[in-house]
Every structure is written in C-alpha cells, then in structure tokens.
C-alpha cells in the first residue's frame, strides 16, 4: 500500500484551475521535492494534502485514509511560507513555542506536564537546539528559528512532514544544517518528507523524488529532463524574480 496517494486531483480557485489533474504516489520514507515556478500549484497541492483545502476533483489518501477524514492534524507536520511572519518581540521562549504545538495532547487544563516537557526536550535535541530551550524566540537567528519550527513540528511525531519553501531568507550555512537535520529525520526516523523548493540544484542532492510543476500540472520523475535552464525560462515567462546563482 502506498503511503500517500494523490489521484486525479484538481483544484480551482475563482474558476481558475490552480492544480490540474495531479497524480502522485509516495512510499513511506520518501523525500519528495516539489519544484516549479511561483503559481505553478506546488504550495496549493501541499495545502490539499494537508486537508486545509478540499480538491474540486480527485482524492488524496494517507495510508489509505482520505485526508478529508483525518481529524488529528498533528499526524501531518507543516511549515508554511508564513512561518517567519511572527512578531519578533513576542515574549516567548523556545520551550513555550515548541510546547504550544502539544495543545491537543494536553489534558483538560492546557498546560505542560512532565511527560510533555520531555517530548519538547527530545524534539529540541533532534534539531540540536536543546541548549537554547529557555531563550526568547526573537533573540535567535533566522536559521535557529527555522530549527525551532522543525522541533515544534516534530514534537507531535508526525507521519508526514510538509515544508513550504522553508529556506527562503536563510543563509547558506543554516541551509546546510537544515538539510542535515531534515535528512536525519527522513532517513533515520523513516519519516516521509515533501519539500517545496526553488533551488533544484541543492534539493536534488537530498530528495529521492523530484516532482516538477508547471501550470498546475505535476510531472513526476522529471529529474533528468528538467534542467535548470528550463526552470529559468519558466520563471522569465511567468515574469517572476529569478534567483541569482553565482556558479553559473
């Protein structure tokens, strides 16, 4: 049985088809990269998989269960593009930020008990941030905050991890750390990961499946025929910003 199955899924927003008849299958432990220009449907498909949006046609199943029926959202961990759009002076510690994601596991009174505190610590160990557990979130660097958000997602031990352009605005060294941590989670913990990215060069080193998007359509196994030049061409065609590359 496939882990995640997307069958003939379409999604229209104001009569415009944003996702068009997408078929996709992932096994447990896959690391899939969604590549493509802005507006090609990658992020929308993530939101469909998450169950945040409902497909106008087709079905998405996680371990055979339609995602529309999943009530426990913590089974799927998601980092959105907007994750960094929080108030940087918000007076909360790393512990509190990670702990808040355990909301559904807290008892009648929504507080952290010792068992949950342990989960927080373990999730922070996973991203090598346990030493900064009592730091204020706003005092951390962008890369460190990104790792806190991975810990916040991992604290619920999700089966599927969805990352929507998590590396926008993160420097190169922090990107390496990020890939190392996600790689560990993917390989050692056998977690299935889907990551939307613009950087095909880097992500193709880590992902075992590349899915390319164009005008709402997805092209699985496109890693060979999909070149960086096509990608740049696409970006130019859609009149969007081009990511500068120094080694070109």
């Amino acid at each position: 049985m496939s882990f995640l199955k997307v069958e003939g899924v379409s999604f229209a927003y104001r009569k415009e088809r944003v996702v068009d008849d997408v078929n996709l299958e992932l096994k447990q432990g896959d690391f899939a990269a969604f590549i493509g220009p802005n507006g090609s449907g990658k992020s929308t498909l993530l939101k469909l998989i998450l169950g945040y949006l409902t497909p106008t046609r087709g079905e998405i199943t996680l371990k055979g269960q339609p995602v529309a029926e999943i009530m426990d959202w913590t089974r799927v961990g998601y980092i959105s593009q907007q994750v960094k759009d929080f108030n940087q002076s918000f007076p909360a510690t790393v512990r509190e930020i990670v702990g808040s994601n355990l909301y559904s596991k807290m008892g009648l009174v929504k507080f952290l008990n010792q068992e949950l505190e342990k989960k927080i610590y373990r999730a922070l160990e996973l991203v090598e941030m346990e030493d900064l557990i009592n730091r204020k979130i706003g005092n951390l660097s962008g890369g460190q905050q990104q790792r806190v958000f991975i810990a916040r997602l991992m604290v619920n031990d999700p089966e599927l991890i969805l990352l929507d352009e998590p590396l926008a605005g993160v420097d190169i060294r922090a990107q390496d750390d990020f890939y190392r941590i996600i790689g560990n989670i993917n390989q050692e913990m056998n977690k299935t990961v889907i990551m939307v990215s613009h950087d095909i060069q880097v992500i193709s080193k880590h992902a075992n499946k590349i899915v390319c998007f164009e005008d709402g359509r997805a092209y699985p196994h496109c890693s060979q025929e999909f070149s960086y030049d096509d990608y740049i061409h696409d970006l130019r065609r859609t009149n969007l910003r081009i990511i500068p590359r120094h080694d070109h």
Partner: protein
Amino acid sequence: MEFLSYTFMRRALLAGNMVGVIAPLVGVFLNLRRLSLIGHTLSHVALAGVALGLFLGFFPVYTAIIVSILAALAIEKLRRDYRDYAELSLAIILAAGLGLATILISASRQSAGIHSYLFGSISLVGTRDIYMILPLALVIIAVILKYYYGFFYLAFNENEAWLAGVPVRTLNVVFMVIVSVTVALAIRVVGTLLIASLITIPVAAGMQVAWSFKSTIWLSLFFSLTAVNLGLILSFYYNLAPGGTIILAGVVILLLVLLVKKIWLLLRRDL
C-alpha cells in the same frame, strides 16, 4: 493601615484587586494579538450599557456586561469578515457606543450617577458589586488557565493555530466574551475612560523585562496589583479620583521599569 478600618475601603480594595488580576491577565493576550484597541472600544460600548441601565432603572453593571458581550461578538464577526479593515469596524462600534451612551444619559433622569461610571468611584463599590465581580473574575481566571496554551497559540500565530488542534473560532469567541466581561467589571473601579489603560499599561511594563511568556503574565500581574493598591490608598489619603490615581501609578511604574532597563543595558555594555 487606617484605611482598612473603613468598610467601603475594604470593599474597594477587594474589587480593585480582583480587577487588578483579570485586567492584565486578559491584557497580555489582547496586547500581544495587537488588539488593544478592542479594550478601548468595548469600554465605550460598556458606557452605553451603563447608560441603558440608568435609563431603564436596572443595575448598570448588568446591562454593561450584556451590551459589551454583544458588541464583542459583533467585533469578532467583523474582524473575521473584514480582515483588512478591522480597525475601521472598531472605530465605528466605538462611535456608535459613545453616541448611544450620550443620548441615553441625556434622556435619563438619574444622569448624575454617570460620573462615577466615567471615572470610577471607590466609595460607591457596594456589596452587590462584590458579589458580581468576585465570581465572574474567578470564572475568567479559570477559563484562562484552562485554555492557556490555546490563547498562547492564538496570540503567537492565529493563522496556524488550527494545525496544533486549537479550536480557533471557539476560542476567539470565548476570548472576546471574557474581554468584554473584564471591561464591564472594571467600570466600578477605574471608570469607563481608564479601563483600556489598566489592560495595557501593566502589560507594557511586564513585556519590557519579561524573559518568557509566563514571566510576562506574572510581571504584568505584579505591576497591575501594585498600581491598583498604591492608587487606591493614595486616593483615600489625598481624596483623589481612584481611577486616575491607579492609572498614573501604572504609568510611573512603566517609566521606572523603562529607566531601570536602560541603566541595566548601559551597565552590561560597559562590562
């Protein structure tokens, strides 16, 4: 401790301390969600509720609570439907509340009593007020304790709270109800015009020196209770308006906190 021998003063201190606990408790979440203008709006709507009570001959705190809960639910609806114009809807509700209040006050024969609701009056805090404030304040504290991390998540990132299983819509409605009840209850102590300050100023001071969310709450409570007690005692001895004295005490505390923080940062830089 001469002031404790007066019954009205003991009642005022009891009511003041209860309000002094719930105002910053609600205020922490309200301010961090950048919704502090809601407190200001609701206080003007609550004034309309008070005026309605005086006009109809009901106990004004009852009508103030009912009217401000209705307004709070309307605000929450508008906030959801017109995300980009949330401030506009607040301005409209504030104006409508104040307009209604003025008409009702002028039409009412007992309008003399309105003064104590505008500026707060400790000598008028009656047993009926205490029976009203005490249980409702305890309920508010219990609700905040129960949904602590839910409100925390809403404050940190309302858009993503559902991912953690937080019932966003329900908690938003619950939150608006406790904010409106807090505002209505605080009327007796600090008066309509100054409630919003009691919700914001101690929290503003707490946020300056807090090292975590929990410490923000404790520090805000500490600053709020200090301001309330200092304000009430000073107003007793110098015959000052209690609401104004409490708020000014709060402002002085905020300035002291800012000063101490500045000195601390300067000293640390030199080390």
